[in-house]
């Protein structure tokens, strides 16, 4: 699904990623953990094609196609989804209108007709109930005045609607209380199947109790310094990252 080889990237001449290697197969859930400033969010942005991040070396393959040169919207059309750490507000544009536009733009790029309203409506209802979102919420302006939890729930709702092949969840657990965390995690689990993949980026092990990863990677200073299974995340939670620093130096 996703294959990243020796990826280097910089922002305004400051190197951030210094040779990331990562391979995610269909149906797998991977987690990336790491201390602040290690490059986790940068990786999420680079995968989605944010143009502030300059790839200086290495390649990103998505479904066996190199996507380095694709624009963010082209990557989205291909099936890459990013759940934002800080979702932006768009006043006056309702959640419903936004997701409708997003879905239809993707369909248009594939030469498909717009989704009929009845089908859209049905899908919206179905996915909203999955995330325990009430219909009131759907007619509010996108992220405007949303609580932290509502913003994240809205991200996962969009993910559920767009049915991406690769979902990158950037710090989806931040700002969530435990109940909201469960709902969001549950939504992610219900959406994941053998045909798609999930990359969870997180600070804490907490989220991984609910979204259990097949693989855990530790990123420090722009590199994957260690990979393992879910027990690695637990170990990090207990003893922190310092031992890896020593190991690594």
């Amino acid at each position, binding site marked *: 699904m996703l294959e990243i080889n020796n990826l280097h990237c910089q922002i305004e001449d400051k190197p951030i990623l210094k040779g990331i290697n990562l391979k995610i197969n269909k149906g797998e859930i991977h987690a990336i953990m790491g201390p602040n400033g290690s490059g986790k969010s940068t990786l999420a942005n680079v995968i989605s094609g944010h143009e*502030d991040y300059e790839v200086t070396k290495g390649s990103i393959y998505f479904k066996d196609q190199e996507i380095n040169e694709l624009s*963010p*919207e082209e990557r989205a059309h291909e099936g890459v*989804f990013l759940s934002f750490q800080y979702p932006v507000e768009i006043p*006056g544009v309702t959640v419903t209108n936004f997701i409708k536009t997003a879905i239809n733009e993707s369909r248009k790029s594939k030469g498909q007709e717009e989704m009929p309203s009845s089908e859209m409506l049905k899908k919206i209802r179905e996915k909203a109930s999955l995330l325990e979102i009430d219909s009131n919420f759907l007619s509010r302006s996108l992220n405007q005045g949303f609580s932290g939890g509502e913003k994240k729930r809205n991200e996962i709702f969009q993910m559920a609607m767009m049915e991406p092949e690769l979902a990158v969840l950037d710090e989806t657990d931040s700002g969530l209380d435990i109940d909201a965390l469960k709902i969001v995690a549950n939504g992610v689990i219900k959406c994941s199947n053998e045909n798609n993949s999930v990359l969870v980026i997180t600070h804490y092990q907490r989220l991984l109790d609910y979204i259990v990863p097949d693989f855990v990677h530790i990123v420090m200073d722009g590199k994957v310094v260690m990979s393992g299974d879910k027990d690695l995340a637990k170990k990090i939670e207990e003893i922190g990252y310092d031992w890896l620093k020593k190991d690594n130096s």
Partner: protein
Amino acid sequence: MAYTEDELKKELETKEYEYGFYTDIDSETFPVGLNEDVVKAISKKKNEPKWMTDWRLDAFSTWKSMNEPEWSNLKYKKPNFQDISYYSAPKKKPSLNSLDEVDPELLKTFNKLGISLEEQKKLSGVAMDVVVDSVSVATTFKDTLEEKGIIFCSISDAIQNHPELVRKHLGTVVPKKDNYYAALNSAVFSDGSFCYIPKGVRCPMELSTYFRINQAGTGQFERTLVIADESSYVSYLEGCTAPSRDENQLHAAVVELIALDDAEIKYSTVQNWFPGDKNGKGGVFNFVTKRGICHNRSKISWTQVETGSAVTWKYPSCVLKGNNSIGEFYSIAVTNNFQQADTGTKMIHVGKNTKSTIISKGVSAGKSQNSYRGLVQISPLAKNARNFSQCDSLLMGNDCGAHTFPYIEVQNKTAQIEHEATTSKIGEDQIFYCNQRGIDTEKAIALIVNGFSKEVLNKLPMEFAVEAQKLLEISLEGSVG
């Protein structure tokens, strides 16, 4: 690829005026220049009665003694009023029986604009009084309106056929000497629309006029008079586009609305005149005076979507003379490249328990300057007057400007006035967010701007709202930075 500021700037520069074409219709045009004889000649050409000629001459002598105002936040080269032709009419004036008789060149123009009469008639049930270069050439749905006693015709026809109504009301809301441009208009107006809704009648359809400026160097001076008699209702739509031109074109229209007791007038405008090219060359100068007067318990609602013109100077206003009357102003003004807009409203509260609402949305892009200028005036007699104003500005890029000049004058302590204002910028983070959801930058801008303008767009009649939305998209394509 997704956007960078430079790429977008380039895209924006290459964006040409969509409706920039020129229709070759034979016109009868006066030589340039303005003096008393020209004013008389216009009046004679239109076969006007003496009172009308005198009215024009009086306005002309007033105008001569006035100076062009300079208080606006606009920078432009003042037009040379002696360099303009004050009359231009399509030569072959077709009879009004059917569209087949209309000059085919003209129909072609309408088709290019996507506003073919046939389609409009069929699809939206809109009756239109089409004004091309000052003279009405086709009027539809007249019969239906006549049945209800509604008069909807060109102002020239009204002067001929309903002189008592015109004489009684013309210049009562916007006096001849009101301001420089209104005085000029009063002297030389060539044509425009007239509408009268009788007592207790609810106009069954949206009344609509499409204006076009068509002759190089021809000023256009429209005059509109709408009278809603007691307990009547009318919704009036005005929409305009113009072909691109190198020299500046002057437009100085006057619109007067009269809402008698318990009447309601809804006046909507979509304005898309040639804004000038990317270097700020050409474009329409738009100096408009629009004002309505509300009698007891009546309501006037102005809605405008302004995307065109190089220079806009326009303040649709309400004089809330009657008790319990209501004035509303909903506006979206979009400026791009070198466009300048100084627009807003005046709400003059005179009667008791009068209420006004002002919602103004300004969108600036390129190197444009967009100013809101509004006056809320509560006179000593206006007990319990209320006003709510909201002025929001949206900026794109770093070279444009948004300005707000609210004037509030309260002379009665029972008044309640609220004023809210916000300024925001379309952010790269918003664009990236949309991009990541598969929405390209152009579409993202349209989405954000439409969201920003929603409160105003919602006030437009349905078919107009769609057109307005398209216009916003066209005007701002690629203009984020």
